[in-house]
């Protein structure tokens, strides 16, 4: 059986539902000898801010015994001007769809960055990161605020025809109101979810494992949390959902599609296995063959409730 891997979201056609999670795939070319771009529907860059950010003091990454990793990068990025001057040239435009992640502390930050990014030709769209746990102002605090999410989304919507996904934090007990606010403000998709706030301690040394003490928890333990948010949101919104959180194999990805996701972001898994896109596509195809599913898109939201 020839399984159709394509997913379509309005005008946007992704040849596979696999995307790279922001911050795990740099500016799109660092992995170029290791990752097969033809297996990716698109890539999402590191979040870009108006001014350059140096990020948090080291150490910035650690593992936990329960599995998964915690990072406290602190949105280190070159800033939008240096991005335009130094990084755009190496974006994998033409090899796969390119989305640029945008982050800021205020509505004006987001619109100023997007205004500059609008000058780049041939990118597919933006992901608005309104959810990072690693910065004090903005980030998570903005993401927790329904009005802020709506204001940022609306402002960016009014200045671009490109695809816009709004990335939210998993820290809501109830995600529906924020998801609905983003949709009403004109989002084309929701990305669910960013990392959870986490912390790790080395008891022997009495030290926190991260320079910033707390960070963003990602990898396999995040998956059940993100899965629940994807499913909850899919019950109330009718725009596509991009899943992010802990996927390491094809079955993880299938589960997210059953719960309602149209696209799947591979994040931390790339650190362990940069060949994950290729491997996961094979695993997803095998699943579809076993279950007589002709198209990946037929899986979206097809969960049966017990």
């Amino acid at each position: 059986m020839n399984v159709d891997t394509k997913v379509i979201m309005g005008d946007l056609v992704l040849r596979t539902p696999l995307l790279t999670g922001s911050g795990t795939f740099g500016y799109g070319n660092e992995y170029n000898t290791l990752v097969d771009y033809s297996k990716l529907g698109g890539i999402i860059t590191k979040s870009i801010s108006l001014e350059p950010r140096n990020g948090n003091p080291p150490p910035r990454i650690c593992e936990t015994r329960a599995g998964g990793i915690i990072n406290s990068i602190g949105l280190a990025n070159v800033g939008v001007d240096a991005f335009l001057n130094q990084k755009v040239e190496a974006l994998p435009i033409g090899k796969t769809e390119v989305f640029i992640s945008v982050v800021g502390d205020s509505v004006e930050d987001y619109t100023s960055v997007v205004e500059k990014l609008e000058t780049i030709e041939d990118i597919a769209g933006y992901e608005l990161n309104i959810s990072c746990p690693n910065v004090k102002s903005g980030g998570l605090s903005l993401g927790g605020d329904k009005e802020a999410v709506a204001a940022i989304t609306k402002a960016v919507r009014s200045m671009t025809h490109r695809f816009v996904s709004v990335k939210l934090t998993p820290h809501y007990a109830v995600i529906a109101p924020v998801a609905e606010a983003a949709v009403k403000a004109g989002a084309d998709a929701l990305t669910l979810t960013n990392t959870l706030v986490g912390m790790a301690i080395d008891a022997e040394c009495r030290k926190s494992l991260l320079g910033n003490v707390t960070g963003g928890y990602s990898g396999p333990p995040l998956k059940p949390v993100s899965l629940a948010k994807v499913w909850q949101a899919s019950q109330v919104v009718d725009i596509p959902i991009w899943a992010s959180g802990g996927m390491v194999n094809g079955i993880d990805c299938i589960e997210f599609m059953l719960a309602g996701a149209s696209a799947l972001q591979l994040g931390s898994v790339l650190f362990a296995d940069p060949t994950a896109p290729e491997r996961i596509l094979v695993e997803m195809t095998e699943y579809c063959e076993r279950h007589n599913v002709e198209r990946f898109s037929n899986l979206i939201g097809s969960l049966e409730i017990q």
Partner: protein
Amino acid sequence: MTVYSPVISRHCQAGQFVHVRIGDSFNPFLRRPLSIGPCDGDYLRLIFTVKGIGTKILSEKQPGDMIDLIGPLGKPFYLPDEKSCPVLIGGGIGVVPLLTLDDHIKKAVFLLGVQSKTSLTVDESEINQRGISIASDDGSIGFNGNVVQLFEKTLQQWSGTEKQKIIVYACGPMPMMIALKSVCAKFSIKAYLSLEAPMACGVGACQSCVVRKAKAEGYYLVCQDGPVFDAQDVELQP
């Protein structure tokens, strides 16, 4: 551990590293960075001490097992020219990239610091063959003291103009690197330090592995801008 990998062994340079997958289970999740040890044709050596779960699992690999490496990664040591006097200074397991470097340098002074005779990180036969001078903290082998003290003592034998020709290549624990950096600064000796930092991607994509810049705001990436740095360019923190 000896690994068959023609692509890496034939294309790597001293100072570069490989990023090693521990297993397929995703727990432990991250790869472990290890320096590329001496290469012989299609083979390279990985030399490591068991520190935690990852290196423990690696140490249990059996001959014939497959292992997943990404590499060669990072910037290599800048090789000395004919006129300079290279001095290789290793601390503990930090000696590994210097063994590889030693294979590319005709005549180097090679110093290694260890805690005691029982914690040597190089076989005694290899120590003799390479002419490595040992310093031990407890005095049980070689010079009684740490390797930076041994270096300072060695320096006394060199004249002022000779000192200017020295290039130090070093890798070891942070306290040693900090002490060494200040000795080199005192005598205006050029020093290249191979640094360590916890890493996720290993290829410059995630911004995990930073060391503070000495001459500017911000950070270098150890995996991409290093692991080898000019000592003057980095601010070392204990």
